């Protein structure tokens, strides 16, 4: 079996694993199902690594599924491209899925009856969807895997059906993402009408052959396809689903959503632009630069501001993911191989760090039944090791060398220019500071404790006037609301309600009972993830691989040549390395984060939030209609920017 032939297995093996888990779910004990899931996801990851190492320095294997290798330049089949970026991301996805499976060993002691393997099976399906998305060289096939990722992600987000908020967040996620997916499909239809092709490379070649250049049809096609990807990447104003989904999803699912699925949107944009639209018949580099810059900067700023305002820890981390996605898009707007390398390093390290941070929050949730910053104040003193991990994660987000995030940030700053450097330092400092502030409050008890005991403010009267309520549920709902202690809550009507905020208290722990100490499986997974984030910055052997992957990703003609069967090696750019200026800027960002976190308890331990950010907070209304309206407006904006 050649390296090419093996490529489809990266999708087929997890799918088969999921089918077996579901099929045998009635007879499998929980433990066997978990171990089997681990073996399948880990095995898939190992396969990706073997393929990656086997293709060292070369453009990588290209497989026409079912043997439909084209004769004479144009074929009918689907192509899988195992280049550095695709295989590398497949390995990253598999590593994170494996970590999430280890982490969830003690989770969900009540799987659906007769379905012991349901949760691992869903994770394996998610892995297959993501691997398919990164490997495929066909636009419609990418849409199929995009939808597979989406469907599984909605189900995973709503996994804890007993929680009122979980099902709501999952539904919002489903609506916005599906709408984005359909916009993508409309774009695919337009591009097919023009070119009569569906492959990234084939469409690109057809566009280049028609000498007309990018007219309204091509730019609209690009805008529509990009809409779906930007929804996935949670770029402003398509981002509203992300905090809602992350607030309610089980912790291992948050790890996967924030760690890699959202970033696949960024990858998708990069792949789409360079493989298809970077030629003379596509979208001009100036237009693409402008779109990515506007999207990136606005996303980064909004993410940082909103991150700072949160008290729900998962939501705080969710907004930090938005901020970092904004940074990735900003760096990508330089459209150079160096920028792609920087984003690659940043993205891989961020995946480990962010997943580890979610892991820490999951431990807090299971120990205390809350992820609310104020309610947890000082209660984490006993979880010293988790506190250290959480603080290290915060420092890594801020950009403390030698974490990989710091290296990635330095490389991105270098590639994106001085103006962007200010943004990178500020945004990473603010998101890092938000995590550090929480770490100091929760694990050290720094700052003032919250004023007075949180009182219950049953908001059922506001929300469901006259509605029938299930007694069992209303008790839980009352508990959900305590902590919203501003006293405005009794005002009626949705617009007059008090602080627009989501507290993190009264959450259902995800384990059977509250854990007395953090389970080893959780700590092992969390530590390994953080170590992964560190390794990206400390293991120079990884860097040439990342540079090679970025070179392949950012070369239009090399991609076309690889698909059409005459692979050429793109000119190799220098492997990334630490520079003094980058280290100094990283240290500056870390210092800023520490200063901000130090002053923070005085600012936020009280009950009032910054008034100036209130309109922005109101915008995140939790209302599906608002989010859809913003998504449609975002599509129009995208088209406008491309004119």
């Amino acid at each position, binding site marked *: 079996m050649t390296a090419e*032939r093996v490529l*489809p*297995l990266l*999708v*087929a093996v997890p*799918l088969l694993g999921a*089918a*077996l888990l*579901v*099929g045998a779910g009635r007879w499998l004990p929980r433990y066997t199902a978990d171990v089997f899931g681990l073996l399948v996801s880990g095995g898939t990851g190992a396969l990706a690594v073997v393929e990656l190492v086997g293709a060292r320095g070369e453009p990588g294997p290209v*497989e026409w*599924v*079912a*043997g439909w290798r084209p004769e004479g330049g*144009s*074929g*009918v089949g689907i192509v*899988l491209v195992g280049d550095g970026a695709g295989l590398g991301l497949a390995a990253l996805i598999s590593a994170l899925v494996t970590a999430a499976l280890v982490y969830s060993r003690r989770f969900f002691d009540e799987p*659906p*009856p007769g*379905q012991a393997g*349901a*949760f691992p*099976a*869903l994770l394996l*399906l998610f892995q*297959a969807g993501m691997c398919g998305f990164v490997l495929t060289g066909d636009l419609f096939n990418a849409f*199929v895997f995009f*939808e*597979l990722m989406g*469907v599984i992600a*909605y*189900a995973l987000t709503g*996994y804890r*059906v*007993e929680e009122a908020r979980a099902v709501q967040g*999952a539904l919002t996620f489903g609506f916005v993402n599906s709408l984005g997916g359909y916009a993508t499909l409309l774009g695919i239809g*337009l591009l*097919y*009408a*023009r070119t*009569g*092709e*569906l492959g990234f490379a084939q469409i690109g070649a057809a566009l280049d052959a028609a000498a007309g250049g990018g007219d*309204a*049809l091509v730019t*609209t096609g690009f*805008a529509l396809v990009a809409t779906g990807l930007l929804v996935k990447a949670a770029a402003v104003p398509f981002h509203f689903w992300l905090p809602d989904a992350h607030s309610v999803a089980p912790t291992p699912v948050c790890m996967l959503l924030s760690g890699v699925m959202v970033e696949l949107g960024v990858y998708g944009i990069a792949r789409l632009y360079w493989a298809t639209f970077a030629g003379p018949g596509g979208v001009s580099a100036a237009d693409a630069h402008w779109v990515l810059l506007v999207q990136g900067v606005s996303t980064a700023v909004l993410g940082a501001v909103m991150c700072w305002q949160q008290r729900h820890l998962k939501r705080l981390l969710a907004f930090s993911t938005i901020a970092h996605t904004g940074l990735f898009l900003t760096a990508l707007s330089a459209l150079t191989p160096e920028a792609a390398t920087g984003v690659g390093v940043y993205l891989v390290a961020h995946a480990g760090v962010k997943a580890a941070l979610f892991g820490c929050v999951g431990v807090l949730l299971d120990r205390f039944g809350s992820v609310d910053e104020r309610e947890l104040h000082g209660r984490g003193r006993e979880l010293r090791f988790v506190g250290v991990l959480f603080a290290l994660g915060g420092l890594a987000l801020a950009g403390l060398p030698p974490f990989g995030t710091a290296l990635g940030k330095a490389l991105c700053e270098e590639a994106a220019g001085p103006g962007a450097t200010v943004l990178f330092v500020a945004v990473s400092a603010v998101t890092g500071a938000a995590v550090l502030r929480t770490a100091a409050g929760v694990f050290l008890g720094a700052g003032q404790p919250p004023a007075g005991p949180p009182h219950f403010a049953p908001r059922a009267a506001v929300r469901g006037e006259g509605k029938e309520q*299930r007694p*069992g549920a209303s008790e839980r709902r009352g508990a959900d609301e305590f902590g919203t202690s501003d006293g405005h809550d009794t005002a009626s009507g949705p617009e007059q309600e008090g602080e627009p905020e989501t507290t993190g208290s009264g959450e259902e722990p995800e384990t059977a009972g509250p854990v007395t100490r953090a389970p080893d499986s959780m700590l092992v997974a969390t530590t390994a993830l953080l170590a992964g984030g560190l390794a990206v910055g400390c293991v120079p052997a990884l860097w040439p691989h990342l540079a090679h992957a970025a070179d392949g990703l950012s070369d239009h003609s090399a991609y076309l040549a690889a698909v059409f069967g005459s692979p050429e090696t793109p000119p190799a750019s220098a492997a990334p390395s630490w520079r003094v200026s980058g280290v100094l800027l990283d240290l500056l960002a870390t210092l800023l984060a520490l200063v901000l976190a130090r002053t923070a308890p005085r600012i936020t331990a009280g009950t009032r939030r910054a008034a100036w950010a209130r309109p922005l907070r*109101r915008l995140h*209304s939790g*209302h599906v*209609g608002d989010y859809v*309206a913003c*998504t*449609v*407006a975002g599509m*129009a904006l995208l*088209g406008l920017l491309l004119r």
Partner: protein
Amino acid sequence: MNKAVRLWVLGVGCAGVAVLFAGAFRRLPEFGGSHHPYGARAVAAALHRHTANVVSSVNFDQRSFDTLGEQAILFGAVLGTVVVLRQAKDERRVPPEPAVVAPTVRGYALVSLPLTLLVGLYVVAHGQLSPGGGFQGGLVVATALHLLYVAVDYRALERLRPVPVFALADAFGDAAYLLLGLAVLVAGASFLGNVLPLGTFNTLASGGIVPLLNAAIGIEVAAAAVVLLAQFLDQALELVPRDGEHR
């Protein structure tokens, strides 16, 4: 956002998207034109592989990897629905009530049940020859079973379709598609490659791997639709709040 602001944002957005669409649609090739390069190639490839229904050839041979993802979506959505609609901690099951059915309805449904089942199986089996295939035929088969719910009541349907068996069949159909692909790979060709004898054009045994993949999809779709509908029917007819009264 209050309603007025939302409508403004939406209105501006829709206007902008409409302008985008208008600009793009005017540049489209003429409606009904004869320039379909991929389509022409797909027709030639299907005829070459002795598959009379070109759409089936595209779905199960030329772009069978799309269908792989598609059936994974179906499988995942059914699993997701089973998970989301599982019996929650605060719910209990009650036996469904017997229903009174008008004799004409019962008679009609009982007569059309075997006919529908037959039509469904025919559509699955002839996917490579005539419009239809595993997806369409599978749904018809699932519909046939549910005619029992119309003809008798939910308890009769529950006796006829044990959900665990159909969940197993769903997983089996999904696995069969993958295992067929893997078997080809192990035999030395590409994953999902069409290496079987192609048979005589326009006969039941033509198209190589197409009828086999079609059958796998047919099993999966029929079973998936049954499991999916069972979740929703259970919600409507069997699950009640633990502390609630019998409906």
